[in-house]
């Protein structure tokens, strides 16, 4: 049992001997090669970027959260079987085929990571922010969640239970942040507008809206 396949083209590639060091140039060269070989269609690349960068985003997750805040039955069903509930809302999607919802509150704080790569619920939150994909976040939050959260501005009392969810399978996690005080009068749409992406990852709490 050795670590490597017999050297082949792919093996030589790992040396990266002759490729330009500027990634922008490497991407350009690769894109033009793949287009030339019929391995990708430029209009498909454009469409993917357009749709995934703009059609999805935290507004989707925020709709789910706001509804859970105003509808206790919905919330109970969401916490029991988020895949079914999110599916009914038409918000399942790529990298988001199954969902588990996690409720943050005064006694329990959930936070989500993917230590092995950067799994993330695309359809509910859009594409992940850079810090979520950083080595520091992937390395640290499972080992020292309280220190990481403090660094990001969330200071948790010692008696709060912290639950870290490491996304190791094709099941994605959505944190339902605590509804801020002073929002009793807001309707569902106004509540959804308060919900931030980072609160649905579990690295931020929501502040009361400005009076």
């Amino acid at each position: 049992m050795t670590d490597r396949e017999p050297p082949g083209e792919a093996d030589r590639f790992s040396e990266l001997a002759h490729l330009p060091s500027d990634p922008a140039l490497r991407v350009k060269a690769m894109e033009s090669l793949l287009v030339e070989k019929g391995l990708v269609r430029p209009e498909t690349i454009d469409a993917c970027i357009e749709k995934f960068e703009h059609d999805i985003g935290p507004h989707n997750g925020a709709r789910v959260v706001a509804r859970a805040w105003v509808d206790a039955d919905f919330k109970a069903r969401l916490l029991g079987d988020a895949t079914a509930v999110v599916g009914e809302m038409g918000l399942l999607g790529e990298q988001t085929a199954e969902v588990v919802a996690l409720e943050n509150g005064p006694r329990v704080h959930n936070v989500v990571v993917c230590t092995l790569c950067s799994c993330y619920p695309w359809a509910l939150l859009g594409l992940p922010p850079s810090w979520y994909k950083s080595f520091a976040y992937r390395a640290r939050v499972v080992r020292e969640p309280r220190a990481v959260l403090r660094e990001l501005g969330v200071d948790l009392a010692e008696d709060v239970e912290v639950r870290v969810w490491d996304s190791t399978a094709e099941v994605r996690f959505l944190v339902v942040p605590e509804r801020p005080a002073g929002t009793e009068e807001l309707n569902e749409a106004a509540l959804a507008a308060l919900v931030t992406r980072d609160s649905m990852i579990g690295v931020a709490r929501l502040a009361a809206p400005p009076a």
Partner: protein
Amino acid sequence: MNGVHDMGGMHGFGRIPYQENDAAFHHHWERRVWGLCQGATYPGWANLDQGRFALERMPPALYLSYGYFERWLYGLTLTLLEGALVTLDEVERGEARAGSEPRDDAAGPEIADPYAHSSYRREVEARPRFAVGERVRTANLHPPGHTRLPRYARDKAGHVHRHHGAQVLPDANAHGRGESPTHLYTVAFPARALWGPGASGKDRVFLNVWECHLHPG
């Protein structure tokens, strides 16, 4: 594989580069890499687990030196080379070799649907071996291939928190050994079981673990 990608618990990476309204892309070329990886698909293309394993096989120093989308570009290139879809010479020159016939079956823009989804859940005959609440211990495995059981959670005791039916097994699927659907559970570990007495006695880590990586606890 015990690779540098398996970084849960590592020290030395410094502070989280957190920005409140951080974007997914910071340079235009990152967007193009992402679009290429998403858009380059056609019959017989590598599955998700093969794609992840390609990233894991980057030389460790490169993995740590590259940014996220540079790693994606590396993984894409390695997958194309291993599938004999491009040659190293073509990659280096950025153009097809003379006489190369372009394919005509690459996916069209209709695949760009963020709400399309294909579940990894499968129906199986086998009944789940473990029940919710049951104590389990993870396997002590160190395979040279792909696995989704991180090092920090191997040979550790926890309990079954939830059952997710049977799902495609990455350890098999990444190696072209089929989907091998296997029961999947969320297992809850006390933080102290993973990180020792320095961790808070109140905290827990949850991860999804396939049945073949669990023993009765």
